[in-house]
C-alpha cells in the first residue's frame, strides 16, 4: 500500500483503521508501521472529521413514538387447546360457536374454565346448532 491509497482509504472510511474494510486492514497497519508520520497525518485529518460527525444532533425515540409502534404490532394469537376445539375450527365454526355459546346458549358459564369444561360447553352448543346429531335421539 502506498500513501495515495492510504490517504484515499482514510478519506473514505475515517481515522480508525479498524473501521476500514477488513481486506485492507493488514496492509494499512503495515503502511503505518513503515511510514508512521505520513500515516499519522492522514489519520488525524480523518479522525477530526469523525469527531465532527459524531457531534451531529441525535434523535432519541420518544415514549409516544415507541408506544404507537408497539400498539400497531401483531397481536398474540391464542392457541387452540384441545383436539375437539381444533376440529370445530376446521369445521369453520369454532370462533362463532364459542361466541354464540357465551352470548346465549349457556348463559352465566365462564368459558375460560378448564379445557374439559370448555369441550363440554362446545359440544352442547354444537348439538344445539345442529352441527352434531345424537343418533340415539328418537326425535
Amino acid at each position, binding site marked *: 500500500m502506498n500513501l495515495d491509497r492510504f490517504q*484515499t*482509504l482514510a*478519506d*473514505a*472510511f*475515517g481515522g480508525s483503521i479498524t*473501521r476500514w*474494510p*477488513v481486506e485492507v486492514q493488514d496492509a494499512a497497519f503495515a503502511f503505518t508501521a513503515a511510514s508512521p508520520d505520513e500515516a499519522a497525518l492522514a489519520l488525524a*485529518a*480523518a479522525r*477530526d*472529521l*469523525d469527531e*465532527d*460527525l459524531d*457531534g*451531529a*444532533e*441525535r*434523535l*432519541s*425515540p*420518544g415514549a409516544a*413514538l*415507541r408506544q*404507537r*409502534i*408497539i400498539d*400497531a*404490532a*401483531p*397481536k*398474540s*394469537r391464542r392457541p387452540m387447546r384441545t383436539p375437539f376445539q381444533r376440529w370445530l375450527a376446521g369445521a369453520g365454526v369454532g370462533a362463532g360457536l364459542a361466541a354464540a355459546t357465551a352470548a346465549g346458549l349457556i348463559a352465566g358459564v365462564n368459558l375460560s374454565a378448564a379445557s374439559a369444561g370448555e369441550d363440554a360447553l362446545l359440544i352442547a352448543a354444537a348439538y344445539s346448532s345442529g352441527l352434531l346429531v345424537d343418533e340415539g335421539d328418537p326425535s
Partner: protein
Amino acid sequence: MSTEGDPDQELIARVGRGDPAAIQALVARKLPRMLQLAHRMLNDAAEAEDVAQEAFLRAWKQAPTWQPGAARFDTWLHRVALNLCYDRLRRRREVAMAEPPEQVDTGPAADRGLLARDTGRRVSAAMAELPDRQREAVTLCHYQELTNIEAAALMGVTVDALESLLARGRRALRAALADLRE
C-alpha cells in the same frame, strides 16, 4: 448478501407470533437505528419519526411470514426505511421545483458565529447539503456502522463505487466544516 447467522431471526419469528416481549425487544433494538438513519437522510425530526414508524408497520406485516434466506432482517429494514426516505426526498424536490424556496445561506461567515459554534446543527446542515447518494453512503458506513460490503449491497453499487461516494462525501463535509477546526 448472506443471511447466515442473522441475529434477528429468532426475534422476528416470535414477533410474528405476537409475542409482546419480542415486540418490545425488537423496537428497543431497531427503533433508535431507524430513527437515526431517517434523521440523517432527511434532516427533519418529524419526518424521521414518520419514516421510522412506517418502516416498523411494514415489519409487523412482514414478520408473520418472514422467510429467512432472502436478506438479513436488519438489511431489509434499512432498505425499507431508505426507500421511504427517498420517496420523501423526491416529493421535496417536486415541491421545490414548483415553489422555489428562499435562498438560505448556511455557510460559516463571521456574522454567523453562533451557528458556527453549534457543531451539531452545523454537521446536520452539512450532511443535508450532500448529494443524496453521498449522504446515504456516509450515513450507512459512519452512523449505522455497516461494513463496506453491507452498505454497497444495500445501495446496489460495487464496493469501489461505495468507496468513491464515501471519499467525495467526506471531503465535502470536511470542507464545509473546516472552520470548526480554526
